[in-house]
């Protein structure tokens, strides 16, 4: 059984480590915050200018001056700090954020990622995605393995305009998990979703990959 959205988020949460500062993208990555392992301290950064994001507010706590990068109302924690957008991206660009978990339209076997623009369709903008993939120490992509036409999103080379080149470290799809080799020479399949077979992965993956399944 391929992983569901929530199971994908749960799998991605295994990439968290105690003491990490983490930036989560919009969509499935946001759900990772629901799966922080017990006893672990993880601090979430919101690139509009906040470190230490809390949960969504109760109705009476809603504050228009307190939103996340998805423009959703949120709450603060005791440890929270606020800062300007330039300070926020100094944290990101300067390599101070340990991990970012992002969605993607396409990822290539050398670690290229495309997640902001489809030519011919209305382009909304890249927001902070290019800064995140260029600056954060570890970049994890969480996405469906194939697009809605059934075509592989794990490719030899991206076809869409790139967000960054050779920046992705780990790809988690609904079928399995791939490491990107640090030298950009290809992928390594390290995990399968329950009951997903190697044949299924092969049938749905354009990129070349080695298989070294972890027990």
């Amino acid at each position, binding site marked *: 059984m391929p992983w569901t959205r929530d199971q994908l988020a749960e799998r991605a949460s295994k990439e968290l480590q105690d003491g990490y500062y983490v930036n989560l993208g919009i969509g499935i990555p946001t759900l990772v915050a629901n799966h922080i392992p017990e006893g672990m301290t993880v601090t979430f950064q*919101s*690139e*509009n*200018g*906040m470190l230490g994001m809390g*949960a*969504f*507010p*109760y*109705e009476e706590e*809603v*504050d*228009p*001056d*307190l*939103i*996340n990068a*998805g*423009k*959703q*109302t*949120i709450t*603060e924690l005791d440890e929270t700090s*606020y*800062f*300007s*957008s*330039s300070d*926020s*991206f100094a944290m*990101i*660009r300067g390599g101070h954020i340990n991990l970012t978990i992002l969605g993607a339209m396409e990822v290539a076997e050398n670690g*290229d990622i495309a997640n902001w623009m489809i030519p011919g369709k*209305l*382009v*909304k*903008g*890249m*927001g*902070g*995605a*290019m*800064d995140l993939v*260029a*600056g954060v120490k570890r970049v994890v992509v969480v996405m469906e393995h194939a697009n809605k036409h059934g075509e592989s999103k794990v490719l030899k080379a991206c076809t869409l*305009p*790139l*967000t*960054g*080149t*050779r920046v992705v470290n780990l790809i988690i799809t609904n079928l399995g998990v791939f490491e990107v080799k640090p030298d950009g020479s290809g992928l390594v399949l390290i995990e399968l979703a329950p009951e997903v077979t190697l044949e299924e992965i092969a049938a749905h993956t354009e990129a070349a990959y080695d298989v070294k399944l972890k027990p």
Partner: protein
Amino acid sequence: MPTPTSPKVFPDAMSALEGLMFDGMTVMSGGFGLCGIPENLIAALRDSGTTGLTVISNNAGVDGFGLGQLLTRRQIAKMISSYVGENKEFERQYLAGELELEFNPQGTLAERIRAGGAGIPGFYTATGVGTIVADGKELKDFNGRQYVLETGLVADLSIIKAWKGDSRGNLVFRKTARNFNPMMATAGKVCVAEVEEIVPVGSLDPDSIHTPGIYVDRIVQAISEKRIEQRTVRVRETV
């Protein structure tokens, strides 16, 4: 009109912008989404009818609110932004070729404004290398990694929003409404700040001032609507 004792303080948004606006000018406008936008100054800019504007702002407001109002009245010729998702009129004008648009990565946009205000004409960043953002721009190697040259941004006018300010222009922002406002204060030839409350000089803790008054030329107290784009709440579990 400024009061005799406080030359920076203006009674309303329109008078605070008087003499500063001209067709074809470049305006920086603070805020992230609808959070921390100078909504009264934007409305005054709308009412002024100034046109042909180049607007530097992370987002473009929503239909009928924030910068969306300037779009509706066709006052904007060009936007420099990182994300413009929530605006149908923007979409229409852009697809019809009536509006020029320059996308910057959000961190590059923030740093271009910071640099502009700090007298730095350009800087190198790894953001956007190998993407269309770097097309036509100078690349340079530092310690084996490629970086792209980005330029500092300045504007004829910056309009920003703060929480509290004093008559000398010292400002304090509130929570995530700070965002682009402090950098924009430094990068406009003239900066006009809209605040929720003008407080007596001396009542702000000098150690807690976010934007020193030197950057702020004019200040106006105004009531904000503070519209919320994505109201997300959780429901209290009942036992």
